[in-house]
């Protein structure tokens, strides 16, 4: 007994000694490595300052017919840059009632006017959230010594939202024309005089898209191995081509795919991503499938000051694909009504409204829609969209009534049931979930309702997925698991019973 005890004591002592040594060594090494960290040596030199794009409204110079000195591209670009920055700092100033940057972009006498406004608004607790979306400047005059320029900025589209004591008082969009005199001071083109010469309320009328479309029988599509990451490293045209054949052969005629905002490069759309997207459209065209492109996936920042960046993104994509024969239409945003609570309903709707205007200004041919997540939201902006789209994951018994209500509310626009489906998952995380047969019954039944109401539809989705990114439904395993089993084809590539009802009752 004593021997064993002694051995135990000994081994405990030895082990604790080793543990202590490990602990001390670890401590010393982390102190050492901490002392070795610090600023990157390259940061000692200010080797480069990258320009960050903060403000990119649509801007189009009229052809140069100015009096005075002949303008060169570089100077014109410098003027444009500083002029837009002047607008940007003014927006920031009116939003925050501070004067950051105003000194750089307005001359001493001109900035007085802004300071007076800021003081007044600050006293009354007014703040103005604003942005300009479009500029059409023309150069009137450029002095011979290259230090004074006069421009007329026609039809500047200004969006404004005015708050007093944190409540919205007014939301307004104006179209104004400004005469601006700029001076080159300290290397910056500063505004010396700014005179608003014309100003009207801007209301973009709804212009219906000129393209017609036949009955949409479609499906929301992601490749099986890269759901929500269609344009990443796993991008493979041969897989997509094969899937498009399956879709075509199942009797469907269209697909809905998503363009992730950040993945595509935010304000500056990456050309390589655009090429990948174009190829997908080419493949769809060769299978005679039409494509609904959903913009702004994985996007949630609707702040007014960044609208120009969002619009820059959208206009790049829309302008490069608007002539594609496979294109059916533009879905501005997937389920934006889910952001109402966190981002503010006014904000989100204003963003959508202006984004529709932008997309329509670039592409007047293809219809525009918004993929609302429920039937109740569909009346929002109904006068501005060509197609009213909604998603339905609720009780099928109530669908018919909901459709009838929508049809009375929105009598003159086509309705698209843009997402619907049911998960066939039942297992550890959801023991009483639906089975494959339940899923088949669901699709049979919903196809009956669709046929009865003569609806356009796009189901969710072709495949059961192996791995759902956390960004989509969160980390909770029962949600992830359920999301994996919405497909018509299971993880082994076999058709599930529901496949029979993929395109018909």
């Amino acid at each position, binding site marked *: 007994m004593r021997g064993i005890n002694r051995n135990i004591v000994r081994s405990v002592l030895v082990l604790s000694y080793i543990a202590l040594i490990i602990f001390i060594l670890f401590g010393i090494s982390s102190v050492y490595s901490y002392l070795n960290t610090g600023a990157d040596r390259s940061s000692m030199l200010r080797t480069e300052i990258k320009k960050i794009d903060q403000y990119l409204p649509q801007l189009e110079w009229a052809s140069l017919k100015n009096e005075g000195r002949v303008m060169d591209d570089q100077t014109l670009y410098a003027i444009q840059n500083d002029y837009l920055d002047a607008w940007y700092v003014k927006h920031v100033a009116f939003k925050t009632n501070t004067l950051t940057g105003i000194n750089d972009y307005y001359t001493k006498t001109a900035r007085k006017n802004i300071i007076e*406004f800021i003081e007044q608004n600050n006293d009354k607790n007014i703040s103005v959230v604003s942005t300009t979306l479009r500029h059409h400047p023309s150069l009137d005059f450029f*002095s011979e010594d290259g*230090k004074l320029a006069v421009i007329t900025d026609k039809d500047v589209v200004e969006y404004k939202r005015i708050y007093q004591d944190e409540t919205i008082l007014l939301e307004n969009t104006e179209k104004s024309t400004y005469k601006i005199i700029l001076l080159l001071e300290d290397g910056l083109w500063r505004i010396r005089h700014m005179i608003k010469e014309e100003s009207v309320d801007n209301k973009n009328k709804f212009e219906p898209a000129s393209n017609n479309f036949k009955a949409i029988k479609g499906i929301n599509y992601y490749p099986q191995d890269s759901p929500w990451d269609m344009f990443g490293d796993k991008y493979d045209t041969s897989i997509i081509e094969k899937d498009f054949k399956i879709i075509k052969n199942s009797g469907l005629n269209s697909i809905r795919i998503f363009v992730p905002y950040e993945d595509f490069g935010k304000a500056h759309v990456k050309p390589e991503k655009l090429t990948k997207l174009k190829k997908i459209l080419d493949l769809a065209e060769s299978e005679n499938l039409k494509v609904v492109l959903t913009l702004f996936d994985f996007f949630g920042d609707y702040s007014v000051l960044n609208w120009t960046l969002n619009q820059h993104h959208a206009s790049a994509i829309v302008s490069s694909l608007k002539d594609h024969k496979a294109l059916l239409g533009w879905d501005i945003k997937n389920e934006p009504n889910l952001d109402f609570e966190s981002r503010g309903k006014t904000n989100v709707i204003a963003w959508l409204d202006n984004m529709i205007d932008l997309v329509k200004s670039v592409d007047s041919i293809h219809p525009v829609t918004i993929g609302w997540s429920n039937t109740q939201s569909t009346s929002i902006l109904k006068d501005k969209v060509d197609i009213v789209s909604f998603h339905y994951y609720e009780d099928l018994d109530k669908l018919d009534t909901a459709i009838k209500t929508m049809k009375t509310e929105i009598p003159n626009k086509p309705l698209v049931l843009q997402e619907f489906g049911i998960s066939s998952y039942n297992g550890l995380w959801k023991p009483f979930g639906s089975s494959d047969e339940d899923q088949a019954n669901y699709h049979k039944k919903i196809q009956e309702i669709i046929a009865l109401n003569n609806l356009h539809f796009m189901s969710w989705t072709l495949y059961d997925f192996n791995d759902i990114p956390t960004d989509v439904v969160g980390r909770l395993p029962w949600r992830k698991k359920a999301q994996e089993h919405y497909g018509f084809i299971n993880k082994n590539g076999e058709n599930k019973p529901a496949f029979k009802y993929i395109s018909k009752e």
Partner: protein
Amino acid sequence: MKIKFTYLIISGLIALLAIPSRNTMEDIEILTTNTEYVAGKTIVLKFSTTNDEKTSLYLSNSYGTTIIKPIIDSDFLNFKIPELLSNKTGVVHWKLLSKESLSGKFYIRPEQKTETIETYLGPPSIGAGGSDFSMLVVIPTDIYDNPLADSTKITVKHQFLENQINDIIIMKNRIAYKNIYSEKKIGRILVSSECLELNSKESTLNVMPGIPTDFSISFQRNHEYSDGNQITTFSTSIIKDTYGNIVSDGTFVNFFITNTLKNILKTSGTTVNGIAVAKMIHPDHKENWSVKAFIEGMAESNVIELSYKSIISDFEVRFTENNRTITVGPLKSFMNQMVPDGLEVLLSVYDGNQILKILSKNSSKGFTTFNLDNNTFPSKSYTLKIKTAKIEKTFPNTKL
């Protein structure tokens, strides 16, 4: 009791009056019909209302946006436009918050009275000749720093020598400008402007000489001998522009000297009162130079030829200490005087046809001495060649 009764009736009547007959905001109408004002004047927008409810007015002008509250005056809503808006020209957009369909705009014109004149004159110096010009940009502003209205007349005055010219220009795009051309002579043009009886300060425009024209060059030297010591001075004629103005001081002139071997030597000078002077040391041997001067990209001179005579016709060489000490000299110049110190003497040592070493020394007091030491040149026969001022003497099979 009676008092109480009267009181009741009166209060009842007051209560009746207080009940608005038409309770909606639909009744608000704008009564102000004027849509044009002059900057600095008080502007009041008057609305009729039958409702006591206070509504605010949205206002937006050239520089910003704000919200103002009304002054209620019985049946009217009066909005006094704050000075920060009523003092600045341009369109003011307004909107009634309680009834957004009720909106409008008014225009504020500048007060046509000049308070300050901003003038921008550039570039500040121009070339004479009448083709170069400077631009005067004038922005007259009223007391609230608003540029005056377009088509306002501005007089631009400028004076040059005896001429004094007044021009009338018209404002366009909120500015007015005038190109002021140089004349044939150099000098200063004084420029000022006047708008609605207010005069600007005076600006000065320098008229600089124009582009130089071709010129001639000459040289001056002490003697014509190539002693490697004296200096030849080149100078230009007075360089002028097309209109006879002497070019600006400091105009850079390059002199290119081409020698017999077609090598180029270069010297330069800058002009003072139109004349540039440059110097070059004499060659140390017989030489012919041809010289041409350039003001790069603008003007050039004629070509002048110079020749330098050799100062040395012959020289003596003495060998001492087993031929290891070689004394060259006396080196005599054109008057048989000793050549100035510094004439280069070259000694080439050959072993047969193969060159071993070239030694170079400068003359001092008319002599140069070479010492060929034992280590470098072991005892045997060498061929020695001595050369100075392009004259060469050969001593074959010299035993060291």
